[in-house]
């Protein structure tokens, strides 16, 4: 995403605040994978992987990788106490049955209504949806972590997505390097601002209108 490590961690840290004790959380690749590093010690959370792991732990040390213990992206992980393995139908059963409390993922575009477009760039990239549609449609809460703008400076939060949708009206929260937005029945609401960005600056880099929460939190 062409973002410094510090900024990426700031976004991940804010996302980590959304995770409560006892939750089951699915993390996408990229910034979402940094979220566990920012959880308070003793948080009882189970990280879920589509390939059939409940209870993923951190990446193993170099040289201690197990080729048969990898996340959905094919990279080595570890497990925590209380973890279990299952086949892919059960892993997705957890998602569709509403037992996965939260998914935290990246996106190419999100609309102010919560439409998610994160899987295809027509004519360029048609890699398949993988598990993105099920997670977007069925996880209880969908949080998108992404840049406020694309590499050309165009807003990634838009009025109507120009890219094909992964799923309509599914995103509950967007966290960028500039701000945090909630998406409710009343539309997009700015709730947090990352210093030193201003609301005007965010407005200039957002492709749709948004309201401002009563008490905007400023995160330094």
């Amino acid at each position, binding site marked *: 995403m062409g973002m410094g490590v510090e900024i990426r961690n700031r976004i991940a840290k804010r996302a980590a605040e959304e995770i409560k004790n006892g939750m089951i959380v699915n993390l996408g690749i990229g910034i979402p994978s940094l979220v566990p590093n920012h959880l308070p010690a003793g948080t009882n959370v189970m990280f879920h992987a589509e390939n059939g792991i409940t209870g993923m732990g951190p990446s193993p040390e170099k040289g201690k990788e197990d080729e048969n213990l990898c996340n959905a992206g094919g990279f080595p992980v570890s497990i925590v106490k209380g973890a279990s393995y*299952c086949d892919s139908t059960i892993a997705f059963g957890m998602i569709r*049955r509403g037992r996965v409390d939260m998914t935290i993922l990246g996106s190419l575009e999100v609309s102010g209504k919560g439409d998610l477009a994160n899987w295809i760039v027509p004519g360029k990239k048609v890699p398949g949806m993988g598990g993105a549609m099920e997670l977007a449609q069925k996880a209880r809460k969908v949080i998108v972590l992404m840049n406020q703008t694309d590499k050309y400076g165009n807003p990634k939060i838009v009025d109507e997505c120009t890219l094909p949708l992964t799923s309509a009206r599914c995103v509950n929260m967007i966290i960028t390097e500039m701000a945090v937005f909630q998406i409710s029945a009343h539309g997009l609401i700015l709730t947090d601002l990352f210093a030193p960005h201003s609301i005007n600056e965010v407005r200039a880099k957002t492709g749709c209108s948004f309201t401002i929460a009563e008490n905007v939190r400023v995160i330094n």
Partner: protein
Amino acid sequence: MENTFNKIIELDDAMKHFRDGMIIMFGGFGGIGTPPSLIDGILDNGFKDLTLIGNDSGFPHIGIGKVVSRGRAKKMIASHIGSNPVAGQLMTDGKMEVEFSPQGILAERIRAGGVGIPAILSDIGLDNDIVTGNKQTCSVGGKKYLVETALTADISIVFAKKADPYGNLIFDKSARNTNPLVAMAGDMTIAEVEEIVPLGSLDPDEIITPGVFVNYIVPSKGVNWKWAWE
């Protein structure tokens, strides 16, 4: 035992989640694998007008049969009630409605509910009025199939051999039967278990029901009925 996830509760506390008129799904097959203490809790607390979903109606004094025999169910969805003459009598007398579903299809409907699949298509009993009832059909590739809709419940009750505090379950031999399916299908799932072991002591490869699907764990007081063969 550590109760890290606050899932381990006493039978009395488990009973606070039940109420009259509920849809209750139960694990077990001919009574085997049906949670005895939860069944007694339901009886002792007088819950009634229940809709019961499970493989069969047990025997008159075994498994879910105890609840059925005392007239606490207004409806059952099951594959057979042949082993419980009281259930047959209640049905004949119009005191309990029974919806029959072929056994394997019933299990698949419960699983479908458990994994968030709205329905499956089936060719079992396609030309049989009792199976088809007023079920919808759907033609695929020129063949007609029954639409067998998913089943879920307000509460699922299951019986397991061991649980850890997260609710990961393993079952004992053929007492597994419908339990892992029923465990997924409840909006709330309560597992009665023979033994609670520390977190991390169950082999993650051997866990049959991931704790994700289990809301509460109740220690079992053991089977207190005589088996049909005894």
